[in-house]
């Protein structure tokens, strides 16, 4: 029970953080971090995949509502939520038996880095391709993806560094 409250608070926190603060950064005019995808990274592994797919869709759609982008955030967030399990198997070599004990902060930095950078690049690439919505200006899409990825990952690793308790 405690965990689900924690999850929904985390959901709300990420949504408000993205909408109120991060969407308005516009570093150098157009670079914004999309930190809300951290929800997909940190959502606990479960045998049942429906909740993660559904919640990430809702999170993306809520951000779409605030930033007038149709369903682009929902599409890209849902996509990385679906392929997340595949990359967990590839990078961390987990079997379904390990799922309840899996925690991202217990894994080594290199593996976590590979995992997050893959998902972030996929998410941002889909997002910016749809936001551009044409085959012109492809260089802008790639540049935006690169810069926003760097920004998002810096914020993610700073955040995990600050908020994890030291033993």
């Amino acid at each position, binding site marked *: 029970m405690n965990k689900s409250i924690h999850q929904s608070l985390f959901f709300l926190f990420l949504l408000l953080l993205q*909408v109120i603060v991060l969407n308005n950064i516009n570093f150098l*005019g157009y670079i914004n971090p999309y930190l809300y995808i951290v929800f997909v990274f940190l959502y606990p592994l479960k045998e049942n995949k429906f909740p993660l797919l559904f919640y990430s869709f809702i999170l993306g759609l809520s951000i779409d509502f605030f930033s007038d*982008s149709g369903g682009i955030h929902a*599409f890209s967030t*849902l996509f990385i939520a*679906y392929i997340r399990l595949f990359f967990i198997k590839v990078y961390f070599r987990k079997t379904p038996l390990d799922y309840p004990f899996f925690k991202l902060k217990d894994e080594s930095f290199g593996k976590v880095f590979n995992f997050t950078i893959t998902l972030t690049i996929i998410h941002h690439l889909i997002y910016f391709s749809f*936001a551009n919505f044409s085959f012109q*200006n492809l260089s802008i899409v790639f540049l935006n993806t690169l810069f926003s990825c760097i920004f998002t990952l810096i914020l993610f690793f700073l955040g995990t560094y600050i908020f994890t308790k030291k033993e």
Partner: protein
Amino acid sequence: MQQIIYFFQKFKYFLFFLLLEFIALFFTFNNLNFHKSKYVNSANRITGSLNASLSNFSEYIELKSKNELLSEENTKLRNQLEKNRLVPSKDSTITDSTKYRQKYTFTQAKIINNNYSKQFNFLTINKGKSADIGSEMAVINSLGIIGITENTSENYTRVQSILNKNSKINARLKGNSRYFGTLKWNSNDYNTVQLHDIPRQAPLKIGDTVETGGKSTIFPEGIPIGRISKINQGNTTNSELEVQLFNDMSNLRYVYIVKNLHKIEIQSLENISNE
């Protein structure tokens, strides 16, 4: 039958995933269409009120500069008023222009959400159906044009910014020559827009002013837009101009919504001639 159930059992996650992706795509494609984007937009009650309270907060910081802008505009309007008083009426018949020949009404509104860094940009303003705002009305401020209203809810309206790849606005050169073209945006820089379809023979100079032409039913005539900053004359009959906007689109607060009272009359007339 069992085969089908087995199929659903096996691929339930993938099917659920596909279903949600299709919903997201549906919203995305609808959002790109000017007249259909009624599902996902920031002009609803929840997002509208959150954006409104946020803008209330940030407004406080900008009070000083906005006051200066307002007083500048007041001076300009006062000067125009004085000019009108000086000219004695030549005709003996005086028409009360405020009552019978009025073509536009202006409504003041505040921008509560502003995008300018994407390819399809929208603004949200804090007036809606309750203030008699409908779709396809012009949004301007004292410096120039800003966009066209699109979706309205009870208290909020979404505005398609001129910084939107779908935006097409009739514009012309200010001065003696009245060559007109279409104003579009190529999504590169939020300070410049492009003026297309200006005939080759039009005399052009860098620094010339571009304003709205009175050929659409949305924008009034002669609203300033910007200055020509670059002229691309290729091997075509038309030239494409880069126009530096007067407005800083990243720093907007108060706007006017212009309602054309003769819009239905003009449109009905034009539809007859088309048939």
